[in-house]
């Protein structure tokens, strides 16, 4: 051995003029180029993110304000209950002619001649038709108000709202405008007296679907989304985690498990609309579940989220160092104890991240819900996941199809709310991870 090495040493000759700087400049240039590419990519990404946020926020921030017209409404008994039969027949209050109250109040406030039908019609058009239900609810809740006069803030009609926010071009010829000159003059009068004003739009968060933009909100859709997220969390997390633990820790490594693994990876890449078709044929056509119910939506989204959760959980389990497993097994812990006492807690941050990313994905999903009939016009809050409901992204999709100017800002406003939900969920994921990681 020693002989061999020494002979090698004696035959080895260093070149007389050893150059060590060959290609060094090129190497550094390549490195700088690579860094520049990366930096550019990040800049481009940031630019598009900024453009996205800018368009959404600049279009949508006005949706959080709503023009209201506050009028002294005279709850005249003559109009609401002319035959005085509300004590015996409360249903009379439901069908009373409430728009007449609004008309009378407007005629008085704007000093219009009640005989001028055209003028009166134009004036009443300024108040949302939803005033009928608003006044009805006030009277039904408190019948004692009949015969008195009270100030009520009524929603302004969508176009008046848009005009008040300066979104309607007043230089266009009057005939081509949704708001005529007379109405604009009245708006001036009303806002001078303080009757017409912008308020924070609580309705955007509480109302359901409506064909009148001023009375449309995401409340009902958000509740539907909440039901679905609950179903996805309750079903997908345990099923996904159990499936991954079985596949990763217990299942024998053979062709069958390989096949299952390949299939799970493929399922994660299946277009979501396919899951909608699957849900339609299995849950609705075969199992006979109700159409456009949050339950079916939740089940479909569970199917869609499962592969994501399984893949994330398996990766997290794989990342737990084998030395921890050996340590527990070497102490005489059973396989089950090893997994549940040591491996799973260490994998939990990864599992949670996967789950929340899956949930966020499901929250923003529209296509499969369209197929199971969740593009429904749902006005009332669903009392349970079995009742018809709709979802936030579907509501956005439906509003995006509406023509009125006031729906444009509401679409962007709803997108902002959805984005805020997603950011909050991701923050939650980060905080949970931090807490778990600190414990170990």
């Amino acid at each position, binding site marked *: 051995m020693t002989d061999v090495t020494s002979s090698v040493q004696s035959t080895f000759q260093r070149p007389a003029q050893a150059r060590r700087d060959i290609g060094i400049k090129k190497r550094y240039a390549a490195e700088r180029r690579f860094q520049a590419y990366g930096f550019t990519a990040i800049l481009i990404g940031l630019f598009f993110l900024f453009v996205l946020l800018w368009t959404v926020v600049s279009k949508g921030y006005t949706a959080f304000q709503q023009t209201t017209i506050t009028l002294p409404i005279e709850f005249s008994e003559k109009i609401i209950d002319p035959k005085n039969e509300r004590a015996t027949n409360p249903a009379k209050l439901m069908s009373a002619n409430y728009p007449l109250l609004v008309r009378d109040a407007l005629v008085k406030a704007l000093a219009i001649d009640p005989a001028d039908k055209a003028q009166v019609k134009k004036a009443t058009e300024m108040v949302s038709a939803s005033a009928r239900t608003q006044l009805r609810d006030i009277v039904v809740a408190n019948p004692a108000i009949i015969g008195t006069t009270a100030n009520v803030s009524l929603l302004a009609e969508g176009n008046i709202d848009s005009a008040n926010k300066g979104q309607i071009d007043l230089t266009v010829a009057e005939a081509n405008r949704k708001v005529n000159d007379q109405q604009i003059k009245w708006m001036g009068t009303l806002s001078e007296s303080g009757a017409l004003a912008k308020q924070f739009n609580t309705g955007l968060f509480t109302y359901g679907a409506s064909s009148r933009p001023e009375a449309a909100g995401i409340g009902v859709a958000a509740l539907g989304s909440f039901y679905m997220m609950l179903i996805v969390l309750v079903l997908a997390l345990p099923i996904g985690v159990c499936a991954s633990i079985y596949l990763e820790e217990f299942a*024998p*490594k053979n062709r069958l498990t390989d096949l299952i693994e390949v299939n799970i990876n493929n399922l994660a890449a299946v277009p979501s609309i396919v899951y909608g078709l699957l849900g339609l044929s299995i849950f609705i056509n075969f199992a006979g579940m109700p159409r456009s119910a949050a339950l079916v939506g939740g089940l479909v989204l569970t199917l869609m989220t499962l592969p994501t959760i399984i893949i994330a959980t398996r990766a997290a389990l794989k990342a737990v*160092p084998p*030395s*921890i*497993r*050996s*340590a*527990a*097994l*070497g*102490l*005489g*812990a*059973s396989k089950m*104890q090893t997994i549940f*006492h*040591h491996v799973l807690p*260490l994998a939990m941050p990864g599992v949670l991240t996967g789950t929340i990313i899956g949930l966020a994905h499901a929250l923003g999903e529209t296509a499969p819900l369209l197929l199971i009939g969740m593009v429904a016009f749902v006005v009332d809050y669903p009392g349970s996941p079995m009742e018809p409901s709709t979802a936030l992204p579907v509501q956005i999709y439906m509003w995006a199809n509406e023509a009125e100017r006031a729906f444009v800002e509401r679409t962007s406003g709803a997108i902002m709310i959805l984005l805020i939900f997603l950011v909050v969920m991701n923050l939650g994921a980060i905080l949970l991870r931090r807490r778990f990681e600190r414990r*170990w």
Partner: protein
Amino acid sequence: MNMMSEAAVEKALDQKMNTVPLKMIGKDVSVYYGEKRALYDVNLDVRENTVTALIGPSGCGKSTFLRTLNRMNDTIDSCRVTGKITLDGGDIYDPNIDVVELRARVGMVFQKPNPFPKSIYENVTYGPKIHGLARTKADLDQIVEQSLQKAGLWNEVKDRLHESGTGLSGGQQQRLCIARAVAVSPEVILMDEPCSALDPIATAKVEELIHELRTNFTIVIVTHSMQQAARVSQRTAMFHLGNLVEENDTDKMFTNPDDQRTQDYIMGRFG
């Protein structure tokens, strides 16, 4: 004087070696990883309250043999063991033997310190808890103190038992792992190169510890360091290419081995 008498005691102990009862007996042990054979009919006995060192070049099968003694090889899917290994006369590969119980009797310390990422206290109590060795908090506290004392770690960590075990130094972590193994009161402790990731000072501490543990436990240790084998063990077994080359008293092994290959390896001519 004192030194002399100690040496004399050692010598007397060593002479008694041949009469020491056998704790574990390996007979014709062969191990296969899939198609590949890693051990060839190894016959090796482990004596009670003795430190047995397994030496040999990398890949010779000494760790594989060690892991057959508490069936850690079961966790590898492709691994197959033939032959017979007994613990106090009972076949440990008997289908009726519970591997959980076996590993409680035959503990293990690994090459890299691998404390659980939990507190020092929880690290030590985990074994006793899952085996139901302690009922009350006081019992657990006592086990923790005794185990850490046996592992020579008590004085260093007694004030921070509830801090993370991973925050200790490498040597302390390894002694924590030994304390963790000791806490379930095993009869045999297997050590797979316990000092290979430690500095000389920590190594010296662990070796001293092995020396003390010998009175209560039977120890089998795999090591790459000839000096370590010579320092800590009474019996040494030399492996080469999956075969047991020689098994002898450590003194004889390092002064006058029977086999030429042992001689070459110890002299550093191969491996």
